[in-house]
């Protein structure tokens, strides 16, 4: 009942406010202003996505003017959580071995990086090298037997150091370079076949 009353109230408010909004929009459009109700453009963006979408008709021109080509983004480092099914892709012992090997490799890469950084006398060069393989907080990959956040970040750092695609997930080439055979980590058949999940 309370919800119904709220609904009716909100609808009537919407109808009243629309007339006011429309008047303001007309006034602003006449003066070259923006319509009300549009959210502010994303922080750091030069123009609103709406404006970018409307400004040109061809996407190539659009890409050139509004979006800088090749926006190399770090992106949020959100780790992948794993579903029950996905966990069945991996052998627990294999994951533990991966974590153990990865922890050792990261320490080795960290030492190598420090050595390289120390050899570089030029401060700018040193800074560049440090940026290449950031390994802070990665020396503690835990032996959980699960593809957890730290393991994924560790894998990503290792892949970066090996110039492999930085997925943060264990592909076969990454495993080979860690001296782990893929069949030590992955089950031979997808869980859909092995576990009879699909009914």
């Amino acid at each position, binding site marked *: 009942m309370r919800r119904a009353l709220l609904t009716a109230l909100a609808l009537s408010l919407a109808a009243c406010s*629309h007339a006011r909004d429309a008047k303001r929009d007309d006034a602003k459009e006449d003066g070259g202003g923006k319509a009300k109700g549009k959210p502010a453009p994303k922080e750091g963006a030069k123009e609103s996505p709406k404006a970018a979408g409307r400004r040109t008709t061809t996407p190539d021109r659009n890409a050139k003017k509004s979006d800088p080509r*090749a926006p190399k983004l770090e992106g949020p480092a959100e780790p992948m*959580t794993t579903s029950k099914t996905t966990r069945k892709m991996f052998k627990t012992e294999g994951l533990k071995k991966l974590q153990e090997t990865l922890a050792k490799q990261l320490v080795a890469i960290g030492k190598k990086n420090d050595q390289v950084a120390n050899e570089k006398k030029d401060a700018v060069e040193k800074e560049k090298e440090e940026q290449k393989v950031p390994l802070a907080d990665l020396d503690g990959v835990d032996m959980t037997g699960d593809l957890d956040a730290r393991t994924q970040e560790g894998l990503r750092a290792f892949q970066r150091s090996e110039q492999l*695609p930085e997925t943060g997930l264990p592909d076969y080439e990454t495993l080979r370079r860690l001296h782990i055979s893929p069949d030590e980590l992955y089950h031979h058949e997808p869980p859909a076949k092995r576990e009879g999940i*699909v009914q």
Partner: protein
Amino acid sequence: MSAASPALTDRYGIRAAAHAAAHPKPIYRFKLFWVLLGIAALIAAVRIGVDPLARRYTQKGIDGLTGYHGSMARVQVSFFPPAYTIEGLKLQQDGQESATEPVLYVKTLTGRLTLRELMKFKLVGTVAAHNLKATIRGGVTTAPEEVKEAGRKVEKEVKENDLNIGKVLQDLIPLRADRIEVRDSDLLLYDVTDPKRPSLWVSDVQLVIENLVTRQKLDQNVPLNVTMRAVVAKTGTLKILATADLFEEKPVFSGQAQLTGLQLKSLWAWTEAKAGVGAEGTVNAFVNFNSAKGKLSGDAKVIIENPKVGPATGKLADSLKAKVANLAISVLSSKDGGDKKIGTTLPLKGTLYKPDPQIWPTILGVVRNAFVESIDWGFTDLPTPTADKKQGLFDQAKDALKKNESGPKAQPRGEQ
């Protein structure tokens, strides 16, 4: 005397032979020198000549593409390890000015042969693209009248612009790819059938597909594997992990995809073009999928945090749409601390060719999130449990509204 004579001759003969061996005729030494020099010259000629030849071959491959023309900065062939590298590859659409952005640009495209397979006279190996940038045209708009009108106008253009990146790469790198690797790449997708032509960036693409052709050899006893990470619309992180056995009579695969932190504001152009409204909020989506014996089973969980809808234009219809949507959001969202959250789980059953998304458990999931129990983040409650036997709508609703129950259940295949 007669007996000593042959011995002496013999002795002299030995001496002559020894002398000849110790001092070979100069002509033989020159012959060896020339042979070695010839081999060295041949190697040098092959080394010098192979790159221009490869470049010519690649240019021929590009010229053979329909509707596109292109160029490359450099082609390099390596023998140890056997590899073929194209640098600065650019593809442009026919009729485009040379100054416009190419539809496909690859900084480095490498084909590396697997020596083990080469010994069996098979050209199998890895295709690796580094810094690939592609513009992909396609899609449809959901507004029916716009589909018809815009579709008629651009039908020809869509056909002409249909860029098959896989085919292009296959034409240029003549080997069977067992491993495909894409690193630090960007895709620009845009909907050519929509008059507003909204675009969407998928950037920082990292993709690996492995065991494509040799997996049947079972030398490593592992299935086909796909791993991917990308950034969608500059804000959302997309991660995909899947394994598949494509040599079964019907495809068998398992996997999951996760999209987190996608700011709806960055999709303003899309939502405006498709629905006439713009949206704000953060989208998190979790998809779990499995297929065996032609059957499909999966779930998609979507959670939108702090959703808000605003009109894209000053039109009455758009404003009303936005107000109604905001009203629905305020009624159907749960409060998690100070944040509003709207979410549900969509169970998917059926077959590969006829998937059956289940609507009622999805709707009831929204209601449960709003009034009974807030939906969990991540894959914790996936896959959705399936009911033992078909439930009526009333029973489904009863389950959805009970706090002790796990929520609305997926219904057995083909039923709701």
